């Protein structure tokens, strides 16, 4: 019984045939290819052409060809084909039909391959998006840098023009120019900040700051701004706050300023309140709660998430126009400082935005650390300043600012090649160095100065004048032993403050 089943089963899936050494069929059991005696196997399917050269080996050998698709006009099968050759007998071909088995395997292979290909395509798309994002951010950074240069000129000359004899109308126009250029400057700063945050290039400082002095400055600024709009400004600062903290006061100021500016912008009447309180001190860290409340137009609950998204503005009327980046920057900075931002708002009643941040305690700071640089301190001396700058606007800006002080002699060099000869021929007290110089970067030139054999020359303080302030740029300046950086666009105060810091 079993033997009969076996014969029936094998007969259904096997075809055996013998050929001569040229491929002529001698015997066949006709399972798939019927009535083929005396035909050449080449005529059955192109596969058999490929094995004709193996038929004449006259050696005992076995060749297995697995998973061959034998598609003919009558039948399509997927088979394993074994060719056996013998020393004295005719070659034997065994065709085993494994169509069901291979079709099942095909389904598995299809799923696997599609999944691999899709994941490779996804990876590529992701890579493309990252590259596109990096290109965008680099473009923004470079573009913003280019805008800073003329903006610096506008800002400086408005300040200078303000000190001349102007009638009321002219002074009003000048104020508009100043406000507009400040607004433009802030927008550029916002765009630069968000692009830095998005590529993970925004590094936080860790420096000591006086908590009271820090908050007093903010309160003073925003009391004035609130009053200008007819609003009350309240503050509740807890007395228990530590005197000195370690953290990034500039970014903390940016967070609070953005939130307070926003509160004032969207409040027509009522008040703005700043609450700062101590949550706890643990493991030498103070956790501080900040909250800004207003009685403004409020935000509908469904928009809570959107307000922290880049370029998103809920209220898009002309009066409230801006880049829509302020709150996105706030959220990113708070998260960068390991805090979380929370929002509560009643539509048409007001909004409260709060966050908690941890700062290390600065126990070493017993005395006042905030130094005020006195611009007047060295008024009897005259200093020789060398400005290395190719932009005529910046040259004129620095010239006007320093000339007004009447305590500086200014030499201007636009070609980097002339710098070292100038240093050798004239006594220079300080160098102001543009970084984007023609043919040579400012930091390369600084390195060359630091390598000069003359001790007094290589020690001259060098201050970079630049808008390129990414962490990798700052590292380069430090490596070139550049003493400090004056950020473009600069104003009179920041320029003089940094210069005086390095004058002996």
């Amino acid at each position, binding site marked *: 019984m079993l033997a009969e089943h076996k014969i029936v089963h094998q007969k259904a899936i096997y075809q055996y045939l013998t050929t001569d050494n040229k491929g002529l069929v001698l015997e066949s059991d006709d399972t798939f290819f019927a009535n083929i005696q005396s035909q050449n196997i080449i005529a059955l399917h192109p596969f058999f052409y490929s094995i004709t*050269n193996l038929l004449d080996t006259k050696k005992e050998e076995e060749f297995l*060809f697995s998973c061959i*698709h034998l598609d003919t006009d009558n039948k399509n099968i997927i088979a394993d084909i074994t060719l056996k050759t013998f020393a004295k007998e005719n070659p034997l071909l065994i065709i085993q039909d494994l169509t069901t088995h291979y079709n099942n395997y095909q389904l598995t292979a299809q799923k696997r391959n*599609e999944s691999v290909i899709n994941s490779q395509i996804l990876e590529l798309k992701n890579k493309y998006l990252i590259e596109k994002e990096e290109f965008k951010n680099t473009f923004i950074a470079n573009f913003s840098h280019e805008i800073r240069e003329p903006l610096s000129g506008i800002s400086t000359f408005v300040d200078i023009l303000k000190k001349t004899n102007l009638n009321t109308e002219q002074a009003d126009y000048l104020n508009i120019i100043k406000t507009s250029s400040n607004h433009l400057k802030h927008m550029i700063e916002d765009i630069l900040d968000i692009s830095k945050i998005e590529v993970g290039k925004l590094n936080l400082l860790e420096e000591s700051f006086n908590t009271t002095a820090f908050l007093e400055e903010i309160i003073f600024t925003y009391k004035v701004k609130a009053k200008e709009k007819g609003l009350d400004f309240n503050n509740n600062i807890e007395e228990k706050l530590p005197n000195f903290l370690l953290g990034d006061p500039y970014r903390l100021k940016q967070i609070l300023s953005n939130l307070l500016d926003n509160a004032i912008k969207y409040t027509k009447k009522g008040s703005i309140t700043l609450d700062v309180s101590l949550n706890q001190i643990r493991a030498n860290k103070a956790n501080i709660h900040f909250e800004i409340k207003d009685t403004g137009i409020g935000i509908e609950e469904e928009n809570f998430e959107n307000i922290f998204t880049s370029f998103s503005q809920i209220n898009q009327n002309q009066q409230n126009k801006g880049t829509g980046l302020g709150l996105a920057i706030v959220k990113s900075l708070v998260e960068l400082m390991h805090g979380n931002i929370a929002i509560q708002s009643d539509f048409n009643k007001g909004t409260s935005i709060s966050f908690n941040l941890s700062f290390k305690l600065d126990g070493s700071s017993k005395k006042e650390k905030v130094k005020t640089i006195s611009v007047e301190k060295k008024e009897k001396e005259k200093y020789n300043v060398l400005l290395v700058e190719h932009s005529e606007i910046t040259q004129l800006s620095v010239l006007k600012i320093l000339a007004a002080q009447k305590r500086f002699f200014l030499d201007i060099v636009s070609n980097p090649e002339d710098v070292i000869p100038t240093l050798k021929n004239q006594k220079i007290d300080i160098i102001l160095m543009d970084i984007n110089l023609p043919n040579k970067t400012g930091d390369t030139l600084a390195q060359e100065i630091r390598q000069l054999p003359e001790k007094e020359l290589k020690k001259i303080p060098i201050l970079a004048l630049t808008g390129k302030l990414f962490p990798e740029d700052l590292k380069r300046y430090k490596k070139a032993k550049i003493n400090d950086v004056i950020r473009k666009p600069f104003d009179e105060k920041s320029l003089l403050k940094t210069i005086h810091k390095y004058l002996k």
Partner: protein
Amino acid sequence: MSISKKIILLGHFGVGKSSLIRRFVEDTFTDNYKVTIGVHILKKEVNISKEETVSLIIWDLEGNDDITNTRPSYMLGTSGIIYVFDLSRPATYKQLENDINYIKTNYPNTPVKVVGNKKDLVTKDFLKENNDVFKPFVDFFTSAKANTKVNDLFSTLAKELIL
């Protein structure tokens, strides 16, 4: 006069080997990807000159991301090799140099044509930017979909096979 020659197509899965053959043999194309398992064998006559034709027995092999895993029996009696990669998927040409060296070492007297397929999916700039990667190896940039250089590829190889 007509002679028959076996050629095989090698390369990763999904690079378009079957599509190139379908375009060459049947002049058709489909966007639906169907995995090849084992081997499909097709035949096509190629006119070399007025008097001469070559009957190409084309073995369309299952894609494999490691060329050394190709079943040796498939390679028996091969007169020519077409190695195909997908221009739009770097994973398929990451090992290009090693794969070509492997083929040339193991089948030293067999003509090989190296093909960057799916040209329709990449830009001219992409080809320029990657010139250093492709130029030393690639013989044809093809597109089975757009029918670019497909006939050139097979007839060039066919001519080399009867030299």
